[in-house]
């Protein structure tokens, strides 16, 4: 985990400083060279690059991620903590809905292989998996905000943007972003569950379970599900990380003031410390999720323990 984070910082740092322009560029009238010089000194940008890198690393190890270059006097960590609740709420609600829906669809499709339910679930999953999320979001807005507004004469429609209350999972503003964000990972989980369940259904121990006259519910729950969900759990870790991090587009479409949006802004404004801080947060989340999955694995799959 540590080497990964180190390389993430290194790569981002190099790319960032290769980018033309700097944090002090302004549209129209430029800052005077003296001011830029002072700013550079204040934020340590006058030092040689390797020294800046070293200082950043040193700070990061002590959980000091520096001040934002574009919001003077604000710590990067403060700013991230401000936008984090929005992103987290959106991601967590999506995740909580995604897991039962994705797994449910997958299991049903597998148990009723080649039935209309299977084809329906699979077709839905294929379409969802190859429709870009901004397209999903835009179509939802057109249908449920614009058209619904017209049809009901302005009495009922889904609001298009913002997230007035962070940490509140029950708000109408969450409906469309959650569907937009969740469509793809749900489809992915459903497909994965289906193929893994199909594989388990063909195993000898499942045949034995049927042969000894076990009730269908018990066969499915105790023998099939327990085994076929192992690869799904592996995928859920990165999925969660994807949800709480990979929402640049959804946050842009629905004007949610989360981390993804602030990241895109900080890239275009060359806010070096914000870029590094956000990247680090993302990479850390992903690494953490993978670690949790690895640990969980030992509990759900005894074979892993035996091997090591």
């Amino acid at each position, binding site marked *: 985990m540590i080497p990964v984070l180190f390389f993430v910082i290194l790569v981002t740092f190099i*790319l*960032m400083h290769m980018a033309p322009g700097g944090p002090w560029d302004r549209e129209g009238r430029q800052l005077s060279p003296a001011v830029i010089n002072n700013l550079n000194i204040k934020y340590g940008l006058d030092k040689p690059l390797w020294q800046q890198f070293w200082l950043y690393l040193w700070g990061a190890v002590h959980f000091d991620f520096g001040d934002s270059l574009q919001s003077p006097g604000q710590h990067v960590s403060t700013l991230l903590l401000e936008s984090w609740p929005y992103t987290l709420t959106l991601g967590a609600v999506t995740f909580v809905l995604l897991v039962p829906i994705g797994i449910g669809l997958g299991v049903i499709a597998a148990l009723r292989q080649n039935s209309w339910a299977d084809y329906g679930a699979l077709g839905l999953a*294929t379409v969802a*998996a*190859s429709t870009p999320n901004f397209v999903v979001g835009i179509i939802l807005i057109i249908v449920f905000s614009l058209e619904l507004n017209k049809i009901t004469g302005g009495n009922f429609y889904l609001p298009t943007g913002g997230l007035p209350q962070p940490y509140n999972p029950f708000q109408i503003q969450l409906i469309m972003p959650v569907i937009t964000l969740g469509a793809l990972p749900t489809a992915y989980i459903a497909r994965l569950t289906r193929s893994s369940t199909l594989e388990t259904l063909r195993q000898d121990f499942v045949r034995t379970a049927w042969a000894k006259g076990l009730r269908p519910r018990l066969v499915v729950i105790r023998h099939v599900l327990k085994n076929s969900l192992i690869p799904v759990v592996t995928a859920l870790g990165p999925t969660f990380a994807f949800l709480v991090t990979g929402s640049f587009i959804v946050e842009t479409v629905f004007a949610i003031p989360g981390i993804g949006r602030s990241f895109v802004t900080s890239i275009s404004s060359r806010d070096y410390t914000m870029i590094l801080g956000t990247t680090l947060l993302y990479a850390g989340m992903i690494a953490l999720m993978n670690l949790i999955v690895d640990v969980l694995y030992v509990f759900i799959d005894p074979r892993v323990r035996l091997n090591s």
Partner: protein
Amino acid sequence: MATAIGVANQVDWDVPEQTGLWQDAWIRFRRNRLAVAGLAVVIILIVIAFGARLPATPGGLWKILHITGDPFSQNVVDTYAHPSLQHPLGTDILGRDQMSRIFYGASISLAIGIIVQFLVLVIGGSIGMAAGYYGGRVDNLLMRFTDIMYAFPDLLLVLVFVAAFGPSFWSIFIAIGITSWVGLARLVRGQVLSIKEKEYVEAAIMTGSSPIKLILKHLVPNSLGPVIVTLTFGIPSAIFTEAALSFLGIGIRPPEPSWGVMIEDGYSGIFADPLQVLFPAIAVALTMLSFTFIGDGLRDALDPRMRR
């Protein structure tokens, strides 16, 4: 020996009509109706894309044939026009003909999607092959590097990269290339490792085949199927990345009409005219879906083991 083979050749073996690997695959591919439909859509798109670019005048062949207008010429009195004979898909906020812009955008999306795969093949293929072929320390080093790239959130790296090299076709192209090879590298490595153990490779080594010949004659043909499938699935995700970047405003720059740019333009005017965002959105989704279907078809056709 020579005569024995000669005699054997003269024997009239009673075998069914022989079909080669590719012929066989084509027969299986044709059976998948969705895949054939996807292929048809893609061929039409390729024709459209070439027509939009080939006589290098604005609007290309389609303008000359009076099918579309000019993707760049603005007309401030005819903005947000509804679909008509003159503008089959209407006009956008600057009065530009939408259909010609969609046609032009097809060339950008297809170029990014398809050509990037060559870059992915070169990077991923050589890294995977080197790791699998040499094994040991080389393998270890390359795979750790791959792991780090894997831990890096894709869109994040692409964002930072594009920011660093400025938004242009080629920087998006390279950014997608250097972030998408990980899956392929792992696949090729796995293939090489398993093929290396096969008897016919052992036989080839024993009869003194040079490493180059070994790679070209045995490793490449035998891992070609899954590689082609992986690359095909890479196309829709590259198309998505370009559209997403352009939508976020850090991809292809206006006035160049990439689909992502058009979606961004149309989205900002969604309340004025929802159609102008809907058409490019559908174009992206349809293209991605077609490539996904082709990928599914190819997987079934080329790799019987991977068949569902």
